[in-house]
């Protein structure tokens, strides 16, 4: 196996709210190998975006350690963290909101280069910006246009170029295609894939779209209410989903064949509130297999097959069925 680039251990992120403590990310542990992609899936509000932001320390972790390329970044000082940001970047969900509306395409892509003083002469900087624009497939004539004048796909390309400008090792992609048209989604995904091959990038790919992660990720982590409930190699997860929630998720992917209809598992019941959680399996209230045991303890993430971890009592006791 190749070496580990990102190692996240027992990371927690709690928010204080008037009603109590909100467990946005609760004891999450995973690692990503260099040059690989970890897909993080889950429904809205499950903490996947928060995890991405905590990993980059855009949000301060409440607890836990984040080790990027051998250096623990969870304790770095502000100044050191700023320079470390050269190595880790982020691609945002909404390409328009994540670009400063008062800056031109050139200025936006140039900014990281200026901040980290990577290229000091403005002429060389411009050359590099044009190069980057070519890499991400943006025509040079857009150099002095504003983001609002371009379409969604091109805006996202600006965001990608900005992230690439500092030659990062690791990029968190926070639903980079969910705001785009389906036809453009494929273009952007292909671009991200090509860039990964060319530059040896490592991705943490956050999405709620399972069909997108399948072909894109090496490993997939399924999150539910701030916890990773299943973590497995992509093909394994799709072939043998073990956690009831993962099974329900996968059954929701539409199959484009009439004769090959799958039985859909419809989840009933409400999501447990992430505030002041009881000590029970978080999925128990919606789980069709829930037993007495599930209501009295929280299952831990345990390996059921090589590289395949699940947090479910059912997977522990019985073999996968």
């Amino acid at each position, binding site marked *: 196996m190749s070496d580990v680039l990102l190692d996240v251990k027992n990371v927690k992120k709690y928010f204080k709210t008037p009603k109590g403590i909100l467990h946005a990310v609760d004891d999450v542990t995973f690692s990503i190998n260099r040059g690989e992609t970890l897909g993080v899936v889950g429904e809205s509000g499950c903490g996947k975006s928060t995890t991405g932001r905590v990993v980059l320390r855009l949000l301060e972790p409440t607890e836990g350690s984040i080790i990027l390329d051998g250096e623990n970044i969870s304790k770095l000082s502000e100044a050191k963290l700023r320079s470390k940001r050269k190595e880790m970047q982020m691609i945002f969900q909404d390409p328009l909101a994540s670009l400063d509306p008062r800056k031109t395409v*050139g200025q936006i892509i140039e900014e990281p280069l200026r901040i980290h003083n990577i290229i000091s002469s403005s002429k060389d900087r411009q050359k590099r910006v044009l190069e980057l624009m070519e890499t991400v497939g943006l025509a040079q004539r857009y150099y002095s246009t*504003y983001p609002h004048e371009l379409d969604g796909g091109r805006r996202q390309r600006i965001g990608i170029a900005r992230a690439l400008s500092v030659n990062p090792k690791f990029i968190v992609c926070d639903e980079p295609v969910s705001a785009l048209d389906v036809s453009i989604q494929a273009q952007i995904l292909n671009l991200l894939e090509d860039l990964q091959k060319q530059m040896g990038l490592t991705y943490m790919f956050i999405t709620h779209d399972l069909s997108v992660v399948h072909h894109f990720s090496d490993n997939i982590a399924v999150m539910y209410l701030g916890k990773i409930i299943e973590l497995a190699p992509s093909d394994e997860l799709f072939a043998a989903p073990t956690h009831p929630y993962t099974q329900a998720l996968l059954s929701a992917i539409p199959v484009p064949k009439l004769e090959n209809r799958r039985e859909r598992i419809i989840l009933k019941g409400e999501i447990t509130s992430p505030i002041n959680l009881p000590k029970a399996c978080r999925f128990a209230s919606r789980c069709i297999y829930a037993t007495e045991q599930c209501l009295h303890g929280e299952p831990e993430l345990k390996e059921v097959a090589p590289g395949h971890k699940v947090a479910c009592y059912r997977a522990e006791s019985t073999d996968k069925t």
Partner: protein
Amino acid sequence: MENSDFRQRSMFAETWKRLKKNKGAMIGLVIVVILFLLALFAGVIFDYDTDVIGQNYNELLQEPSWKHPFGTDEMGRDLLARIIYGSRASLFISFAAVCLAAVVGCFFGAISGYFGGAVDSIIMRVTDMLLAIPETLFAITLVAALGTSTFTLIIALAISNIPIFCRLLRSSVMTQRGSEHIEAARAIGAKTSTIIMDHILPNCIAPVLVQFTLSIAVTILTISGLSFLGLGVAPPKPEWGALLSSSRSYMREHTYLTIFPGLAIMTTILSLNLLGDGLRDALDPRLR
């Protein structure tokens, strides 16, 4: 779009290009510039001692004529000369006060909005205290305590305008702070100061500009009110509000005495508003 233009258009050049297309704003700009030039070169056009404060009992209360385009007042002084000299006091005091208020208010507003928490609470409570005191009353108190002078007046007016700017910027900064492009700026490693100066403030400038022109207008009126009460600019020095108030007793027979100072105030405020609105639109690349 020019295909080969990779030059980074500067914000100033861009704004100017867009401002030029706005007729109203250009009219406003021309009038404001003329007003400033007149105020600046008033001494060249008129002699202060003879034209402005020199009393001439042979020409009391004359209707507008070629010799006195705006007529003369009850002491035979040329109204045009007095209005032009009066613009010095009105414009200088109001601009100085509002500029000061805008700078201080925006500074604290930005800090309050960006950092939030205890800092925000403290700044906001102080602002609330200041907001609770009526502008005129506050100015009267300060002038009464420190004596009538231009400086006191500027300080008094500035302080009462600070909370408006502070609140305004705080709310804009708070909206901006939560937006994704600020997070993106943090993600690329920008410093807090860079984020505030480079990303937040430029996006907050529109409401500040509009408030600036409004505040100038209100301040000119407040100065007039204070002069009317005898706390603003002391006679015989002319000031628009003072001119207006002194002409009150002659209003029925000699309407021009009230009309011209009133027109001067109105024109200034109107042109400032036109310019402010135009600037706001020109500074936003999304409106083109």
